[in-house]
């Protein structure tokens, strides 16, 4: 504490430079609180657009299933399972990959990430909160698609609960990719384009049975993270192969961790360049 003896303004000015004590910075927001806050804000943000958006996503997937009914051999279990599982996971790709890439691209272009970067919240909380929000919008749409598909293609509904794992884990992987696209693309149009290409890949490679594909396409399918979500879901049909479900979900989780970490890094990098 300084003693308040009367000193003239002049003597303050000319006194030997006393280094003013540094002001202690305020605490940072914890990862959990930051994540929840961002998540809650995002859910409320899309409250209005959620219903039409899910309608579009489901409509698109159901449309594809109707088309595929005329194309694939409906006598084969694997073909029917591939179509339904692929169309269901497509809902996740549409929202978590495509729309999140678009959202991050727009935020960045409008300097809107400044808002988060000037608050004491960790980039990881922002990225995870947004990714979680986008992934969770997709759950009702994915379930609806899976149910409609099961009815159309006479598949069992018993193991549908697997979607409770498939959606968050493939959601993490796909939202991570979406976030990276949105944050690293130099221009927002490019982010949108990349998001759309990613979704198209999930569509083209996801809904066909793997055993009908040429070698090269199978390699491409293996490189696409959404395929593991599709395969996990497929493995739960008929006589479930739980080891395959677990293995595929583990790949989703691993890709999710890598992509979300990369997204967090790009978030930091995105403006302070």
């Amino acid at each position: 504490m300084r003693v308040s003896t009367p000193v003239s303004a002049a003597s303050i000015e000319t006194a030997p430079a006393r280094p003013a004590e540094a002001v202690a910075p305020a605490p940072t927001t914890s990862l959990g609180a930051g994540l929840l806050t961002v998540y809650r804000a995002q859910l409320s943000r899309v409250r209005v657009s959620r219903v039409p958006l899910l309608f579009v996503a489901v409509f698109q997937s159901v449309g594809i299933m109707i088309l595929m009914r005329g194309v694939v051999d409906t006598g084969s279990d694997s073909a029917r399972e591939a179509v339904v599982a692929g169309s269901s996971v497509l809902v996740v790709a549409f929202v978590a990959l495509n729309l999140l890439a678009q959202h991050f691209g727009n935020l960045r272009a409008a300097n809107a990430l400044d808002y988060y970067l000037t608050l004491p919240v960790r980039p990881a909380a922002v990225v995870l909160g947004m990714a979680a929000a986008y992934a969770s919008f997709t759950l009702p749409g994915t379930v609806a698609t899976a149910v409609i598909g099961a009815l159309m293609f006479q598949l069992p509904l018993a193991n549908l609960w697997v979607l409770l794992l498939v959606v968050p884990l493939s959601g993490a992987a796909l939202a991570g990719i979406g976030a990276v696209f949105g944050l690293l693309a130099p221009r927002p149009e490019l982010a949108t384009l990349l998001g759309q290409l990613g979704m198209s890949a999930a569509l083209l490679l996801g809904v066909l049975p793997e055993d009908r594909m040429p070698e090269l396409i199978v390699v491409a399918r293996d490189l696409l993270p959404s395929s593991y979500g599709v395969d996990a879901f497929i493995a739960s049909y008929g006589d479930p192969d739980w080891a395959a479900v677990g293995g595929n979900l583990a790949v989703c989780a691993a890709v999710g961790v890598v992509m979300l970490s990369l997204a967090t890094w790009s978030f930091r990098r995105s403006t302070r360049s």
Partner: protein
Amino acid sequence: MYKLPGTDERSVTIPGEPTAADPCFTVRKLTRTYRTGRRRDRHVVTANDAIDLDVRRGEIFGLLGPNGAGKSTLVRQLTGLLRPDTGTIDLLGHDLVRRPETAARLVAYLGQESGALDELTVALAIETTARLRALDATRARAERDAVLDELELGAIADRPLKKLSGGQRRLACVATALVGARPVLVLDEPTTGMDPVARRAVWAAVDRRRAEQGATVLLVTHNVIEAETVLDRVAVLDEGRVIACDTPGGLKAMVGDEVRLDLVWRADPPMDDPAVSMLAQTAVRTGRRWSTRMEPGVARELLAGVTSGPAFEALDDFTLSTPSLEDVYLALGGRHQGLVKG
């Protein structure tokens, strides 16, 4: 003295001690360029050119300057958003060039754009910001309600920002900057688009933060009235350089005791009138407005001539005013005329 929430009181409060001489921002030789254009017409814009700036604790400090002067570029470096090419920034004893992320824990920033919050309701935008400033849920809600009251936003609290008028939206954004006390506020054109009532509410709120918490405020503005009413000191920026820095009064003293005579004509003024023909030679014309700076005695004489002769019939309005910061800016050789009056 400013008191940080959640820190040990004894270590940070020094009761009754003036701290105005302590620095808040100390900026030295700050330079920042942007590369623009593609391939052939690629060029470099020097948005900030070796800027030196000292902002003291507890003052309301303004940055005044025309579009493109480099004000936003400067404050985005002072808030850790942009890395300077060269130069140093000290904020309350912290090196911001080395550790830009410290700024988020000391400064509340209001950017020129507001994209991140557009789809939230006003209340949720404020509460979210409070939570992200590490307030717990109860405190965040309490502070949200307090700032909604303070800025009289209660009636629109439940409406999404993007459905509000421009001025209302800006006011809501100011509210997000004010929630959760911070020792420093950096506001980039906070009152753009606001009506006088809202503007006054913002000025009062800013002044309250300074008076009650000893907060330092750095405010970017185009508005000379705002600058003259609320600022303790002003730096005038032009083309990336600080061309003057003083109190508003001190700056005005620089242009001497010249006054400005403004005449607005409703019809073509009679050129055969001696006062009119004299004014016609020097006046800067903007539409139907003539504006001239001159010695007070001369101004009085000319005004008397214009208002007593036939020219009075053609005159719509006239004002004789002491120098404003706009005059200062023009006298300093500012190359643009981008400052807003009123």
